């Protein structure tokens, strides 16, 4: 056997934040990139352009097109794809008990969370942006809806991925809780009134779409500034809480 003392002596070192983000990003990206996951979610995402094409074939109005993008694209495809990648970014490592290989290192916690969220966003972005924007294009309802859809999708993507990364750090059954948030909270309870809708990300993405297209959607009355700033603030807060939680939770 080789003498391990021949390895470089490295007392009291730590990994710089940038390097830690990069290391986490690469390892989480590789962990998340499974063929089954990519194919399955891409098939799901196909629902959006398929629905857009169906609507476009029927010469639908701009109102119908916006409603389709808001419900199928921003209400279903975007949050669910974000949940799968965002939640699994650190949730899978927790479940596999391999988080210890990142946690027990001379690194700060926030770069781990940021790197994981970036990896999740890297995989979520092409699937969601392409499919949802394609849906908007295929409705044939004009350029306004396409630009608004792109803008709303990007803002929603950032917020959803960060929030679901927090779910993955905090909750053991992050997928079930995430689904409950998407289907029950956003899809059901938040429809009940403007008050609860404020704590549903869907309202902000819908508001962006409304601002860009001029179409009237229910519970989507925020100004563009609010609709952009609040999701970004939520994203930063989610990552901060995730980093705090990662520092303070038990690791298996």
């Amino acid at each position: 056997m080789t003498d391990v003392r021949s390895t470089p002596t490295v007392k009291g070192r730590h990994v710089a934040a940038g390097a830690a983000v990069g290391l986490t990003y690469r390892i989480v990206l590789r962990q998340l990139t499974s063929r089954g996951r990519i194919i399955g979610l891409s098939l799901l995402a196909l629902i959006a352009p398929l629905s857009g094409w169906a609507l476009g074939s029927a010469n639908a109005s701009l109102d119908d097109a916006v409603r389709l993008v808001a419900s199928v694209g921003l209400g279903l495809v975007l949050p669910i794809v974000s949940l799968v990648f965002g939640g699994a970014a650190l949730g899978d490592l927790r479940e596999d008990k391999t988080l210890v290989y990142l946690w027990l290192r001379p690194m700060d916690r926030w770069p781990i969370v940021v790197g994981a969220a970036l990896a999740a966003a890297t995989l979520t972005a092409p699937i969601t942006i392409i499919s949802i924007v394609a849906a908007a294009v295929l409705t044939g309802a004009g350029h306004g809806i396409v630009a608004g859809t792109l803008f709303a999708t990007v803002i929603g993507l950032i917020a959803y991925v960060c929030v679901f990364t927090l779910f993955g750090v905090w909750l053991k059954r992050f997928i079930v809780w995430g689904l409950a948030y998407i289907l029950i909270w956003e899809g059901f309870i938040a429809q009940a009134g403007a008050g609860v809708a404020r704590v549903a990300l869907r309202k902000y993405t819908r508001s962006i779409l409304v601002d860009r297209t001029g179409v009237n959607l229910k519970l989507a009355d925020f100004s563009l500034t609010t609709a952009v700033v609040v999701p970004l603030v939520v994203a930063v807060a989610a990552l901060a809480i995730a980093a705090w939680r990662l520092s303070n939770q038990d690791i298996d």
Partner: protein
Amino acid sequence: MSELPPPTATLPPPLPGQGGPPAAPAALSGMIAVNAVSKFFGSVVAVSDVSFAVNDGVTALLGPNGAGKSTLFRMMCGLTPPSRGSVEVLGFDPRNDRDVRGRVSLVPQQDALLDHLSAASFLEFAARTHGVANPEQTAMQALATVDLAEVGPKPVGQFSKGMRQRVKVAAALVNDPEVLILDEPLTGLDPVQRRHMIALFHRLGDEGRCVLVSSHVLDEVAKLGSRVLVIAQGRLVASGDYRDLRELMDDRAHRIRIGTSDPRRLATVLVDRGLVSGLSLDAHNVLVDTLDVDSLGRQLAAISIEIGVRLTEVSPLDDDLESVFRYLVEGR
């Protein structure tokens, strides 16, 4: 470990309700210092008021399954905080001090690796996350250390349990740790690899590192060295050299086999002189139990000359680790 702390362990463990409240002990110091540590999971007490200090060399943490060994290790690495008390590693709090984590390594008990990575990539990743300057070279050296250099390019997901165990040990070496904590590291290894691994641990200990190895297999621990920490039901039961611990067990008779040309005659004299508390005979041996092994040792040769019997063997039968463990943990 230059020397274990003054007896923080008592023998046998005190029964509940015995004695008054313990005086607050002075904080221990060492490469690893565990001071009055308890850990509760809800109503379950996993570790109860444990104190010890460990320095360089190999020390075995011994205890039956569920004794609290892994919980103690997790606290030493900062993976979970103590409910009470404090843990210091190299003088720092392992849970909150970022940089000390670069000087410590853990081989976790669970069989979890990043299965999609090759062994070389996994070790390179481990080296990079420790901020090692030359991660590729370090990874290859660590792989060679555990005799896995030839399978470096293969995914660890395809490895046998023994190979995965060796990958975990190699990953724990990439940062040249001053403190190495190994939770059941010999599980799944074949006898040859087990021997290699034990030799590696000794070498690491001889280099001045603090090597703490847990096991519930007594045979393994005996090979790891004589310094042990014995834990049972979450409490530290004993610490020190297990041969010294055997000496401390003065309420328990030593069993010794004496080979002789005339067992019956020798046995009669030993009983007459009150040197044994029990014995049995066969054609060539006397098996004696004695509470005063020193007196027996001093007088045995003289007696044999005096009565004209020849001695062919004097062997202690219960100063091994298993005997100590049975006494401490199982009370028999």
